C-alpha cells in the first residue's frame, strides 16, 4: 500500500476519550505506586498522631488551638503546597528524566490534551491526599467531643472543599514551573517560603496575589467557625474586617480562574516545546 492509497486520516470519536482515560489512569498509577506515596502518607500521619498525643496529655491542648495550628497553619502553609510541588512540578519533568515521555509523544493524543490530562490526574491525587489529611486531622482533633457529628463534620467537609480549591491553584502553578525551569524545586520552595509564607502575612494589596489569602478568606467565610476561633484567625491573619475581604464567589472564581488560565498556558507551552531525549552516544 502506498501513501496515495492511504485512507484519509480521520480518527474515530472513541479514540481520544479512550486514550485520555488510559493516560489519566497511567498518571494516577505513576503517582500512587512506590515509596513516594508511603512517605507522604507517613508525613500526613504525623500531625494526626501529634494531635492525638496532645489531646491526651495531663493538660490537654484545646481543640481549637490544635485546629488552628495544624489545619489552618501547618497544612495550607507547608504540607499542601509541598505535596503539590512534589507531584505537579514533575508532571512532565519526571517523564523527561525517566525518558518515558517519548512513549506519550508518539501516541495519537494531542500534546495539549496530554498535558492537561496528566495535570488533572495529578490534581486528583494531591486533592485526595490532602482531603484525607484534613478529614483525618479533624477526626484526630475533635473525635469524641460534643458537636462532632453536627458541627465539626460539616466544617471538615467545607475545609476539604477549600483545600481542594487551593490545590487547583498550586498544581497549576507548579505544573507551569516544572515546564519552565529545571530548577522547579528551588523555585517552588522559594515561592512557598517567600510568597505564600511572607507576602501572604503582610497587610497590603500584594497578598491578593497569593493562594493562601483566598484560602484564609474562604476559611473565615465558609467554615462557620466558633467566635473565639474566628477571632483568633482574624487577629493572626490580619483580616479583622470581613467586609474588606473578597466574597466567597470571588475567591472561588479567582482560584479556579487562575488554575484554568495557568493550565491553559502551560498546555500551550508544552504543545510548542520540543523534548529531545539524550542518550549516551546518541546523535
Amino acid at each position, binding site marked *: *500500500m*502506498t*501513501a*496515495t492509497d*492511504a485512507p484519509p*486520516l*480521520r*480518527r*474515530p470519536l*472513541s*479514540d*481520544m476519550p*479512550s*486514550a485520555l*482515560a*488510559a*493516560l489519566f489512569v*497511567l498518571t494516577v498509577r*505513576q503517582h500512587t*505506586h*512506590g515509596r513516594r506515596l508511603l512517605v507522604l502518607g507517613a508525613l500526613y500521619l504525623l500531625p494526626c498522631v501529634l494531635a492525638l498525643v496532645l489531646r491526651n496529655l495531663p493538660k490537654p491542648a484545646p481543640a481549637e488551638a490544635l485546629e488552628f495550628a495544624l489545619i489552618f497553619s501547618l497544612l495550607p502553609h507547608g504540607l499542601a503546597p509541598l505535596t503539590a510541588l512534589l507531584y505537579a512540578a514533575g508532571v512532565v519533568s519526571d517523564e523527561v528524566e*525517566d*525518558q*518515558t515521555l*517519548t*512513549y*506519550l*509523544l*508518539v*501516541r*495519537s*493524543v*494531542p*500534546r495539549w490534551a496530554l498535558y492537561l490530562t496528566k495535570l488533572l490526574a495529578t490534581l486528583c491525587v494531591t486533592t485526595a491526599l490532602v482531603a484525607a489529611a484534613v478529614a483525618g486531622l479533624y477526626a484526630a482533633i475533635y473525635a469524641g467531643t460534643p458537636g462532632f457529628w453536627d458541627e465539626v463534620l460539616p466544617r471538615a467537609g467545607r475545609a476539604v472543599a477549600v483545600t481542594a480549591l487551593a490545590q487547583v491553584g498550586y498544581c497549576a502553578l507548579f505544573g507551569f514551573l516544572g515546564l519552565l525551569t529545571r530548577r522547579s524545586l528551588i523555585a517552588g520552595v522559594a515561592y512557598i517560603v517567600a510568597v505564600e509564607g511572607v507576602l501572604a502575612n503582610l497587610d497590603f494589596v500584594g497578598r491578593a496575589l497569593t493562594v493562601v489569602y483566598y484560602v484564609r478568606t474562604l476559611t473565615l467565610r465558609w467554615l462557620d467557625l466558633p467566635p473565639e476561633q474566628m477571632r483568633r484567625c482574624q487577629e493572626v491573619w490580619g483580616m479583622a474586617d470581613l467586609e474588606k475581604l473578597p466574597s466567597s464567589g470571588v475567591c472561588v472564581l479567582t482560584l479556579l480562574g487562575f488554575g484554568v488560565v495557568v493550565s491553559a498556558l502551560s498546555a500551550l507551552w508544552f*504543545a510548542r516545546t*520540543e*523534548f*529531545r*531525549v539524550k*542518550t549516551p*552516544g*546518541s*546523535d
Partner: protein
Amino acid sequence: MTPIIEFDGVSKWYGNVIGLNKLTLHVPAGVTGLLGPNGAGKSTLLQLATGQLRPSQGTVRVLGQDVWDNPALNRLIGLCPEQDAFYEWMTGHDFVRTCARLSGLGRRDASEAADRAMDRVGMTEHMNRAIRGYSKGMRQRTKLAQALVHGPRVLFLDEPLTGTDPVARRDLIEAVRGLGAAGCSVLVSSHVLHEVQALTPRIVLLHRGRLVAEGHVREIRDLIDKHPHRIVLVCDKYRDLAARLAACPDVNGIKFLDRESGLLVETRQPDDFYARLPALALADGVALREVYSEDDNLEAVFKYLVNK
C-alpha cells in the same frame, strides 16, 4: 514508487550545533537501513520523522502528511526508541496494553492487541513479569512490541539490537524481516554495519548531519569510482600469477599477502578483471583456491564514503 518518508531541505540545529544539514531524502516502502557513526544525525532524523522535534528548516512528511503536531498521524506510526526506559513497575503486557490504549484502542481491543504483539516478538512466556526483572533482550522485544501493538504502517526502529545477545539479535532480525514482508515500511537505524546488512540491502548513509549516500549497497559501491575494487586471490603460485596480472592494463595495484598465500589486486574494472581471470589462471596452471572481494560489504562502502 511514492515515498513513505520525505525530508525536503531539512535542517535541524540545537543552538550552534547542527544536527541535520539540508537533508533531502525520500524513503520508499519496505525495509531501509539508516546508517552512520555516533553524531551522524540518525536519532535526530528519527525524532523529526516521528514528530518529537520540529525542523528548523524544511519539511518532513510521512505518508504524505506533515508530522509535527499531527497526533492523528501517530496512529499509523510506530517508534521503538533507543533509550532503555520503561515504567519499570509494570508488567510487559501491562505496558504494551497501556501503549495500545494510548493509541486509541478500546480496553478489550488493547488487551488482545497486546497479546498479539507480545506473541509476535516472542515474549508470551514472560509478559506477566515486571519489566524491572527483564533481561536486555526481553526489554528490546518489549519495546518493539509497544511499537507494533497498534498496527502501524510505518515503523521506526532506533538501534533496536543494542546490547542484545546473539539469540535475541537473531530473533529481532527475523521479526523485522517478517514485518517488511507483511507490508510494513521499516526504517532501522544502527551504527553496526553488519546488523543493517543482515536486515536489508537498501541503506541511507548519514555523516555529520549530511546525507552521504542512499540506495542499494551494491549500487553505491559501484558508484564510488575514486576507490578501485580490491579482490583477493588465494592460490599456490601467486607470484607467477602476479607477474601475469602486472601486464594487464586494468590492474592498478598488486599486493602480496604472504601469510594467506595470495594476492590483493586493485582494479577499477572489476567486471573485465573477473572475465579475464579464468583464462589467466589456466594459462599458468594456477589452481585458484579462493576469490573474493573485500569491497562488497557495507563497512567498505562506509569507509570509502566517510574517509574520502
